[in-house]
């Protein structure tokens, strides 16, 4: 077998067992790896409570991992989210994914709960569960430093240990499994960290074909202004979007009360470069290197983070934003949900937190002390508790990222149809509505968006299963990645067959969610977007969303997906016909 190793490591933290098992080849062919494989492996467990010891926490790499396929040293972490209650996956890049593959594994599935804090150490042949009592309570840097001799490290911080519902899992090199609170699931298992080293090499079935496909991908990267353009993400990282979102009048500001923040230039891509001396960094082996770090080596914030600790909280102090980002990374928390929760809290009490208060509240959240006890539950529960549920700018309890849906109607629809809650990455319509890739679409129109969102969700489910980075698709398409996959595995794949796999994954996730009680009522945007206008300017009007058109398009989406008008399945045995 090429591309896959065909092996999964099952770890049971309750009884301390670790065993390698075969993964049936037909599952690998049908679900690829990453998100798809993880979601498939959840089939017998998706009804479990996220904090039930028996729920699996799955790390799955894809068939391209371990090769020089651009952007593919990535994994998906899959389980059920304690924040949203939905099935949940996060894609993350870095050496950790590469090493899992090199250790001869396509996936690691961790169940059970350890009575004492432990870490898991994996190498080519062995897996050991070792005590981590001395590390419990420690931040990410210290944890990673003390384990790095054992290979690549992924760890939780105090937030994960303390069950913060938006705790993340941090990779040693600064990448994060960043949304949905998967760090809290890891913490509930008593698992502080995982280390992995391996020496295996991923074979490629057809080297010549692989090299040609890789050259095609790289050519498209170079032809893409968003990727390698002089104002693109390779140069400025995702903060390259700050100026654009300001110009397009869709930068969420003060808990989405407005969509323009006059001082956003303070934390734009060029400002970050000037003020922090941004150096190019990125996921292991990625040619794009969209991540940036300061001249002191400190990871610098992404677009979402600068906007949310910036405009969303009415703050224009770049250095305070960088500090908040660093603190979240160190404590192991999702920056988007943390900042959005503070913003909702700020609006509810009539005052957004100033930079000093942000820092102290982040500490309180991670340790669940003082106001942090409530804030650790995320904006929906906070707003509910404060008697102002309408102030949570979330979908299915996941805080919305930094693209105001009033400025991109496909984004509005995609937020609600996303199987993991208010996420921009499932269908990523910003790609065409704003960045004009692969072709531009009218951002102020719902026309055709139901079908476009459906197709993009399928595409991205496949991308998350390869696993490749979404940013690669600002240039390349499934045509070139299908070639890479065929060349690596020796199994023929193309865009259409990959989309069919994506559709299978997507519907499986939706089915799990529906079985857990989700339906149309949960596919809802906060009321604010239908009743309040965004900030007009530069000849751009940002009216409230038209609810009738929105609902019409949502119903179209359900029809295209073959769902009922309630967004549910007619066939209760839907999963049985799937591989």
């Amino acid at each position: 077998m090429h591309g896959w190793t065909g092996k999964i490591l099952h770890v049971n933290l309750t009884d301390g067992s670790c065993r390698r098992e075969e993964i049936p080849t037909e599952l690998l062919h049908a679900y690829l790896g990453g998100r798809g494989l993880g979601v498939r492996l959840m089939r017998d467990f998706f009804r479990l409570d996220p904090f039930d010891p028996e729920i699996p926490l799955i790390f799955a790499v894809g068939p391209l991992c371990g090769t020089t396929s651009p952007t593919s040293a990535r994994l998906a972490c899959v389980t059920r989210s304690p924040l949203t209650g939905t099935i949940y996956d996060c894609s993350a890049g870095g050496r950790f994914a590469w090493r899992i593959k090199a250790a001869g594994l396509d996936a690691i599935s961790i169940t059970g709960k350890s009575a004492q804090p432990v870490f898991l150490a994996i190498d080519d042949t062995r897996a050991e569960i070792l005590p981590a009592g001395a590390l419990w309570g420690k931040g990410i840097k210290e944890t990673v430093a003390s384990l790095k001799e054992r290979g690549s490290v992924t760890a939780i911080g105090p937030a994960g240990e303390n069950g913060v519902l938006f705790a993340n899992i941090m990779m040693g090199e600064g990448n994060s499994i960043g949304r949905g609170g998967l760090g809290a699931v890891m913490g509930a298992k008593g698992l502080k960290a995982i280390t992995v080293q391996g020496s295996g090499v991923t074979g490629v079935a057809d080297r010549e074909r692989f090299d040609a496909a890789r050259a095609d991908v790289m050519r498209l990267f170079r032809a893409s202004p968003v990727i390698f353009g002089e104002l693109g993400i390779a140069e400025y990282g995702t903060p390259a979007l700050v100026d654009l979102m300001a110009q397009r009048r869709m930068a969420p500001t003060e808990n989405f009360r407005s969509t323009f923040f006059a001082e956003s230039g303070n934390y734009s891509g060029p400002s970050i470069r000037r003020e922090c001396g941004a150096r190019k960094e990125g996921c292991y082996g990625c040619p794009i290197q969209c991540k940036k770090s300061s001249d002191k080596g400190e990871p610098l914030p992404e677009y979402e983070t600068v906007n949310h600790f910036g405009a969303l909280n009415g703050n224009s102090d770049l250095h305070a934003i960088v500090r908040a980002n660093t603190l979240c990374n160190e404590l192991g928390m999702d920056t988007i949900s943390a900042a959005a929760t503070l913003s909702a809290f700020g609006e509810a009490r009539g005052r957004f937190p100033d930079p000093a208060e942000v820092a102290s509240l982040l500490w309180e959240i991670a340790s669940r002390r003082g106001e942090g006890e409530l804030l650790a539950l995320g904006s929906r529960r906070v707003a509910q508790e404060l008697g102002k549920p309408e102030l949570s700018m979330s979908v299915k309890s996941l805080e919305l990222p930094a693209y105001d849906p009033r400025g991109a109607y496909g984004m509005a629809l995609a937020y609600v149809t996303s199987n993991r809650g208010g996420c921009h990455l499932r269908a990523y319509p910003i790609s065409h509505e704003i960045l004009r890739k692969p072709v531009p679409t009218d951002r102020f129109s719902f026309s055709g968006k139901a079908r476009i969102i459906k197709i993009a969700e399928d595409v991205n489910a496949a991308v998350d299963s390869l696993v490749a980075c979404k940013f690669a698709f600002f240039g390349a398409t499934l045509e070139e990645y299908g070639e890479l996959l065929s060349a690596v595995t020796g199994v023929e794949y193309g865009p259409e067959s990959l989309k069919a796999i994506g559709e299978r994954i997507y519907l499986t996730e939706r089915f799990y969610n529906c079985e857990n009680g989700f339906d149309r009522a949960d596919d809802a945007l906060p009321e604010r977007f239908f009743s309040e206008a965004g900030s007009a300017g530069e000849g751009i009007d940002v009216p409230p969303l038209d609810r009738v058109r929105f609902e019409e398009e949502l119903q179209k989406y359900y029809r295209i997906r073959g769902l009922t008008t309630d967004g549910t399945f007619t066939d209760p045995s839907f999963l049985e016909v799937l591989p």
Partner: protein
Amino acid sequence: MRDQIEKYSGKLLADRSALPGRIAFAAQDDVLISDGAPDLAELAGATLSRLNALALVAARPSLPFADFLIARSPKGENCILPQDTETRTFLHDIPFLRKGELGDDPAPKIAVLLGNRKGVIVEGVGIVTLGAITVEQAFINYSSVFHSTFVKYLQDVLAEGFLLPGEREAFQAFRDQWLRPLSASGLVFRDKLSQEKDEILSEIEAVGRYTVERGLVDSFFGNISACAGDLIYISQTAASLDELKGCIDPVPTDNSSTTGITASSELLAHRKIFEQTGARVILHGHPKFSVVMSMLCEARDCPIKDCWKDCPHVREIGGTPVVAGEIGAGGLAKRVPPVIGASGSAIVYGHGVFTLGRMGFGEAFAALVEVENFCREEYFRRLEACMLPDEHKA
């Protein structure tokens, strides 16, 4: 979506890439619709219904070149491989179905091919292309296949002559009837472009329209810019040159804002050309004969294989320098700026032409026309020379 279908059917007629009455589109939202020539519309609908995509066009090209390319392909081959940049970058290759393979219901076979590629040629039927998420994309892919097959056929005829019955006559008809004289006559340009934003935007919009109307593009791609003080006004990536209103980015020359992340992928080339030549405006199109001629190289025993990106030489066609270089962050931005200043124009191998204006777009447009006309004449001159009996050759 019906309005989109109407719009892009109109564009296929306006650019004369498809035969009137032989165009059909299909598109699906929650329902599938198709429109156009009834037999093609049926085929379009039946094909699209098998695919996870939004739109499809099936149309008979106005020139028989795609069919000739299939007939000229050796038995056993199932795709053609044009060498122009657009094909290499976006289409990779163009699969085809021969008449004999179609059977009673070609839709499933076409759908299988479109499951892997953006467009396919169906012998005797036409070009069928997919739009993954928009109707416009189906149109773009049709135009790209039309452009690529045009360029490849002209190259092949020059290299190998006519091989099929009827080919020579069809080619003559193309030359006499399809091709039209190319000029800038009747177009109005501002002699001296001011620094005024509104004037610059409206001039760029007009020049974009002219470039498409005079057929100096493939589909509607190319890019246009004007320099004004600290700003470069440049058309956005994936913008229709004939619909540039609202699609021109002002980009600060010092990169102090990244709003221009949506600007043309050739922003860097434009910036460097402005820096090195002092020009006011730049026009870049993909005129077909220039593309064909740019790939004609007489060097023998050259060790370089990937000429389109690795050729280090500056060749010349009618006084216009020809350089290699990939688009975007590839080599084009390095190789064009140093050579374009002297003649005011430069051709990029397999890709297209850049021209300059020192005061305004009139000069740049005239240069683009002139380069293409020279390449057209040179092409036919060479073709005639090849076709002469041996004793008449020089």
